[in-house]
């Protein structure tokens, strides 16, 4: 084991991760295929087979292995059967895996089929897969039901070919914009090819605290521009820390570094180190970091992946191998903490936005982390919802002893609960102090002043004009009382 004395000299590079991208893209495309039947136009009664079209597009987009494609086809068949869109379930259970497999074979073995800039692969694979899948399906019908030959050859096969033609037309309209979108999303980390290995290093933090960020700098992909530079931050037990700063300042990067997603998911080079409960983040896999630190992302809806409340909370526990009894126990505890007791069997789609967010928080708390991080939690909430959220998070901090880190720009709602604040600007940590000090700093240096609550700005402006007020105006009540004192 190599002993590391100076953490700031460490460097760690990782290629872009995202091993489950094929799963998420395929899931989304299959769900889309299911509802497209409902909004689908038809030409003379013939509609595209949206199931096949969408999984063809998914396979073209993510290029899964042949085995994975069979799986995708199987899932497509199961979905069709269970949403009662299947004329003959056995037919689908054979035809969809076959169709998906055909598509994958084409995608893997034929590369670069272009006319000018137009990629012909989606068109070709959609056509052939539909023929394969449709053909298998009608053959099943023919064999199992004993349909007459002339119907099989003269009516069913032409129908299959027409649907295949529809699919071939429709597929590029789905593939091309989707491919452009996904290319933009993943371009940042693609050029790296090697990952560092820290497993034989002995790295310890200089301080014993839940989160220790030591001289961390980070660059995405193989960019030369630093997203964040030389960040030093210690989060103590029981803290309620607010990280704020203008858009693009690097606060999300800091948040992702705490989760271990930077660099292992996003790909890039990290200098310095991030320690979670004494453990170096580069020596852990992302799920292991999640045992200590729970992250709720801004788009909490995408974190909800199961059908009912209880399952959602159980998801992380099932993945880690907890017993059924332990799962039930933790579920009850955690639902009580967020105030969703009694809603175990409710479907996720029937919950309101605020309830869904609580569910996301609950599912993250299920593994009992000691730290909770919320990334821009109020971006889709109204003022009432924001207040409720911070009341909940405040109680988790005060009553349950969870260390909380919130990244937000809606400062006025979170101030009553925070005991510390950090301002990030241009990738650098500008100030790390009490709420009042940081707000004053922001005003005095004219940094991100638009985020300051209007009360505070007025307080500082009046002070600048020589009108002293006894307490800083951090809340309406303190403003009122200080004005009343001034009146006397």
């Amino acid at each position, binding site marked *: 084991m190599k002993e590391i004395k100076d953490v700031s000299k460490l460097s760690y590079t990782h290629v872009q991760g995202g091993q489950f991208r094929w799963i998420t893209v395929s899931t989304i495309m299959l769900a889309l295929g299911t509802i497209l039947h409902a909004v689908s136009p038809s030409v003379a009664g013939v509609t595209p087979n949206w199931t096949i079209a969408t999984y063809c597009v998914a396979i073209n987009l993510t290029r899964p292995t042949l085995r994975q494609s069979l799986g995708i086809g199987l899932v497509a068949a199961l979905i069709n059967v269970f949403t009662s869109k299947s004329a003959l379930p056995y037919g689908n259970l054979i035809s969809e895996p076959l169709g998906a497999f055909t598509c994958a074979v084409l995608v893997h073995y034929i590369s670069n089929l272009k006319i000018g800039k137009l990629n012909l692969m989606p068109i070709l694979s959609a056509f052939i897969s539909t023929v394969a899948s449709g053909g298998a399906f009608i053959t099943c019908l023919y064999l199992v039901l004993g349909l007459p030959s002339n119907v099989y050859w003269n009516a069913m096969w032409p129908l299959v070919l027409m649907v295949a033609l529809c699919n071939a037309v429709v597929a590029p309209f789905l593939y091309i914009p989707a491919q452009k979108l996904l290319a933009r999303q993943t371009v940042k980390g693609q050029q790296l090819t090697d990952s560092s290995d820290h497993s034989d290093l002995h790295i310890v933090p200089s301080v014993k605290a839940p989160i220790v960020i030591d001289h961390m700098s980070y660059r995405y992909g193989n960019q030369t521009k630093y997203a964040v530079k030389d960040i030093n931050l210690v989060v103590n037990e029981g803290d309620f820390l607010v990280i704020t700063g203008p858009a693009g300042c690097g606060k999300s990067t800091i948040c992702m570094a705490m989760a271990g997603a930077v660099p292992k998911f996003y790909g890039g080079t990290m200098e310095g180190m991030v320690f979670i409960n004494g453990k170096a983040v580069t020596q852990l896999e992302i799920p292991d970091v999640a045992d200590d630190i729970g992250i709720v992302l801004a788009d909490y809806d995408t974190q909800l992946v199961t059908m009912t409340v209880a399952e959602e909370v159980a998801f992380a526990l099932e993945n880690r191998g907890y017993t059924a009894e332990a799962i039930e126990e933790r579920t009850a505890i955690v639902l009580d903490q967020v105030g969703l007791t009694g809603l175990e069997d409710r479907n996720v789609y029937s919950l309101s936005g605020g309830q869904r967010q609580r569910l996301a928080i609950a599912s993250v708390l299920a593994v009992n982390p000691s730290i909770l991080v919320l990334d821009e939690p109020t971006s889709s909430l109204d003022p009432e919802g924001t207040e409720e959220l911070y009341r909940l998070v405040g109680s988790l901090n005060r009553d349950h002893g969870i260390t909380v880190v919130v990244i937000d720009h809606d400062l006025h709602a979170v101030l009553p609960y925070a005991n510390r604040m950090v301002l990030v600007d241009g990738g650098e940590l500008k100030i790390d102090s009490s709420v009042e000090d940081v707000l004053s700093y922001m005003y005095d240096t004219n940094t991100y002043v638009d985020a300051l609550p209007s*009360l505070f700005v007025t307080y500082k402006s009046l002070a600048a004009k020589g*009108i002293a007020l006894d307490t800083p105006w951090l809340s309406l009540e303190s403003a009122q009382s200080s004005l009343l004192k001034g009146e006397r």
Partner: protein
Amino acid sequence: MLQVENLCFSYVPGQDIMKDVTFTIGSGEFITLGGRNGCGKTTVTRLLVGLETPSEGKISYDGQDITHMPTSERGRFIGYVFQQPDRQMFRQTVAEEVAFGPEQLGYDKETVCSIVKDALERVGISHLAESYPLGLRRGEKQRVAIASALAMQSKLLILDEPTSGQDGTETKELLVLLQELQAQGLTILLITHDMEIMAEYSTRVIIMGYGTKAFDGSPEELFTNREDLLELGLTKPPSVVLSETVPALGYCKSMKEFELRYAEYVKG
């Protein structure tokens, strides 16, 4: 310009959730529409734009009865900017995205081009004309949505909670833009929860409550004279609360105004 008479609405026939809503919107106004969740403020705007049909009542635009006109045709007069602007985006560049509306209206290519150019300029995003819409920041996406609505050549712009979730800078920039558009002759109808915006920027506030239109007047009237703000789901903005603490200052519509008056008051 837009006249609403005795509008009633129900999801289930016979059970009106909204009754006798009557108001007139004139040209060049900046109106905010508020009320608690579920009071019907969004429903009213949906009725205006045709996404819901009233069970009773009449909506007229410039004297023409549009109560039963389909939504796609009302786009000419009323532009609607939804809360999530990226829901509707699907083209590769901002210019193409904004062009969608005028294309649907049937204008020829040249006219569409000039309409798009004009809309982008008015909203201040000409520099983004070739950018990929879905890659933009939230505030920029919203401007694209506003430009898309303007490209429909509508004179009334309805915005559904455009500032929720935005930071202070984006909010300020948006409101400045809306004021500029109002100065150019557009009528703005803003649904919002933000009391500070209501007090500071709008000249007229309509509050939905008790199953009907509960208030229609100036923000000052609302925040100083109404006793039932809590029932209506509203609170007084900080500037009003503080100006009541120091009555000599009179009604202050924003903290900036309060600051100026208080400074004078203390010095004097």
